């Protein structure tokens, strides 16, 4: 190939040297602070959750990657955040991170007043505040019409009544960013409520659900200065804009999880012997691994293209819906294929695959399931 006489600005799908460094740093951090044993301990319903790894994660400052420097964050790009969360997804390192330092922080940036940004974002960047978005309710959905939690305003005071259901990372929150419906105007807005407030009950959802809670709110008092943008009107729109920016980062996390189960499956198909040969020699087993790899790569490139579009300010709506559809289905399928490869061994908790299997199910729904995003994608394409 001849030398270019257009030396700059080539199509380039590689990470920058800084992003490569970040990737390496996060990967070794996860290996050191969140080894499988620690992740299993955190996931165990009976063992106490160790505090140390989370403290270490906070100390890296990474969680503020998308918070601008003027609010105490790192001011990174969306692709930077993708690199970080892909590596955390390999764990999978549990939150609250995407739910707080990404979704809640971006919502504040989209809809908050300057005072609100100054008050909350620096503390979110340091991990002192873990503000988790509480959006969905019994009917489970990400539409404005699904919100029934009610706020009554009397002067500067709010009284909130109702329930939030299937709240991702709800239990670990210090604050809840609640989608609420105004009893006066019927507008759906967002209010910050301390998670330990009187009248709030947070219940862990048992079973296959991954870090999901039910939240009951009975006559919970809140301050109207904590309404995002100081008005219910416009709050939901700010949340939707923030969701569209959060989703590709979440997709990168799902990519990281898929990558991890792919590597487990390749390794296992090379080392596990049956009928006197590594099982990877069997084409039926190869099919599972190849299908897994296709799902992984599809998720990877749709996610990173969406992140790139966010970074350059290109209209990214269709790419975001595409990415979430592909990453949610991809991570889900990747885990299934991995279970096919691993058979009984994969279902043993101590092996670690099921950490991903559980994560893949909950993240399938989080911020909208594939059916939801397929419909939005059709709208975006003008069908």
């Amino acid at each position: 190939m001849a030398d270019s006489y257009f030396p700059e600005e080539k199509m380039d799908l590689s990470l920058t040297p800084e992003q490569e460094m970040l990737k390496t740093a996060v990967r070794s951090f996860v290996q050191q602070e969140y080894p499988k044993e620690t992740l299993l301990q955190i996931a165990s319903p009976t063992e106490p959750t160790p505090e140390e790894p989370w403290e270490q994660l906070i100390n890296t400052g990474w969680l503020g990657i998308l918070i601008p420097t003027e609010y105490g964050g790192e001011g990174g790009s969306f692709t930077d955040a993708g690199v970080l969360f892909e590596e955390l997804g390999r764990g999978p390192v549990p939150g609250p991170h995407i739910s707080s330092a990404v979704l809640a922080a971006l919502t504040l940036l989209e809809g908050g007043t300057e005072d609100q940004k100054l008050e909350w974002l620096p503390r979110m960047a340091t991990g002192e505040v873990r503000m988790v978005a509480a959006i969905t309710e019994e009917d489970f959905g990400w539409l404005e019409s699904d919100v029934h939690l009610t706020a009554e305003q009397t002067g500067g005071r709010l009284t909130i009544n109702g329930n939030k259901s299937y709240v991702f990372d709800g239990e670990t929150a210090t604050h809840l960013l609640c989608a609420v419906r105004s009893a006066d105007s019927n507008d759906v807005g967002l209010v910050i409520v301390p998670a330990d407030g009187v009248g709030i009950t947070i219940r862990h959802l048992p079973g296959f659900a991954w870090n999901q809670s039910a939240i009951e709110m009975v006559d919970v008092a809140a301050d109207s200065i904590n309404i995002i943008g100081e008005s219910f009107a416009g709050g939901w729109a700010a949340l939707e804009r923030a969701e569209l920016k959060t989703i590709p980062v979440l997709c990168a996390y799902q990519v990281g999880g898929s990558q991890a189960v792919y590597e487990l499956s390749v390794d296992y198909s090379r080392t596990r012997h049956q009928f006197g040969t590594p099982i990877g020699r069997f084409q039926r087993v190869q099919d599972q691994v190849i299908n897994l790899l296709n799902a992984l790569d599809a998720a990877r490139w749709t996610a990173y293209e969406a992140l790139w579009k966010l970074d350059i300010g290109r209209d990214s709506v269709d790419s975001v819906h595409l990415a979430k559809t592909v990453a949610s289905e991809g991570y889900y399928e990747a885990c299934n294929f991995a279970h096919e490869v691993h058979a009984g061994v994969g279902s043993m908790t101590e092996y670690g695959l099921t950490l991903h299997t559980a994560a893949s199910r909950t993240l399938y729904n989080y911020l909208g399931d594939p059916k939801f995003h397929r419909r939005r994608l059709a709208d975006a394409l003008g069908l």
Partner: protein
Amino acid sequence: MDFEPQYTPEQEEFRQEVKAWMKENMPPGIVHPADPIDLTEEQYQLRREFGRRLGAKGWLWSTSATEYGGGGLDVDHAIVLEEEAEAAGLTIPPFYDSGGRLGGASIVVWGTEEQKKFFLPPIFTGEVRTWQLLSEPEAGSDLANVKSTAVKDGDDYIINGQKVYVGSSLGCDYMWTLTVTDTEAKRHENLGWFMIDATLPGITVQPMDLLISGGESGAGSGVKNTVFFDNVRVPAFNLIGGHNQGWKVATTHLELEHGTGGRISRNPVVDRLFDYCRTTNRRGQPVSKDEDAREKLIDVHIEQEIVRLFQLRNYWMRHSGISTTYEGPQASYMRKTLGLKMSRHILDILGPASLTFDPELGASEGHMEAHSRAGIVAIHPGGTTDIQKVIMSRRIGIGREVREQAGALG
């Protein structure tokens, strides 16, 4: 990361040059039949003429070396050229040709200097069209099992045998092929790779009757042929890569044919399907407003996007000199499975209108009917979907003891 070529002012300037040149040099009257079998001799000659003009300008094989008649340009130029050709409904080259992308690439990697100087310039300037002759009745997925023979006789080889699924309609100037050069030697060490003058005595071309032989934007083959070699005398000079070295030469074009070259253009059938559904009313509303149709169209869109991104990734890797492992066959696998799935979706969305090119009751000037057949046929050229998975498995290190390397691309 950067998912698209950023057009520099110089590139935009180049684009203007290309646009103006194409306006001047594209022969008028080029049309695009839905089934390339309908490509007339006259239409073919218009495309060849356009190809020669592109070749003279260095734009037919724009990234190939100038010393062999290529354009010596970089990927940024190639992208602009492909985009401008696509805007005119054409590909580059604008006709079916296995010469530059596959055969030529093998000669670049494995030919001697003398061979490169002799064979490459006519290909890169569009003076000749070449066909690839690989499959045989007993050698499909197992290409190394070819039975045709080339026996050394003085300064020549005498070739005998039969090749199938070859070429296109309307003939060619050169054929390149793989034959047994040593019946005693081990598999993969017994083959020769030849560039053959198609006018030599003893070569017979007989069209096959197939469901369809598709292709895009007029670069489709239309017809596949059986080619018989009956004591065809070929000079030893035409043997590329050396005696019994043919498999090595073949790995280069097989790698490219398996999708490692990547591409940047869209699948025009997808665009046609979407256009049709947006603009055609059924029961008082556009087809695209029907809930079932929408679901299927979104399915097609999603998979098309995945294929596009895989091909883009491969294109970037190829042109950045990053070595690939499984990526080529992966893109091929995904593209082929999408094509087949799409023919099902077209059947679901359009019903019987997808099965006829009747001007009144067919759809999209016959393009949907053509895809209904092409989606099936396209799963095998360059290796079946199953073969792509086999190659991927070897390349990721699970299919064999030793991880397989990709073919050399030069």
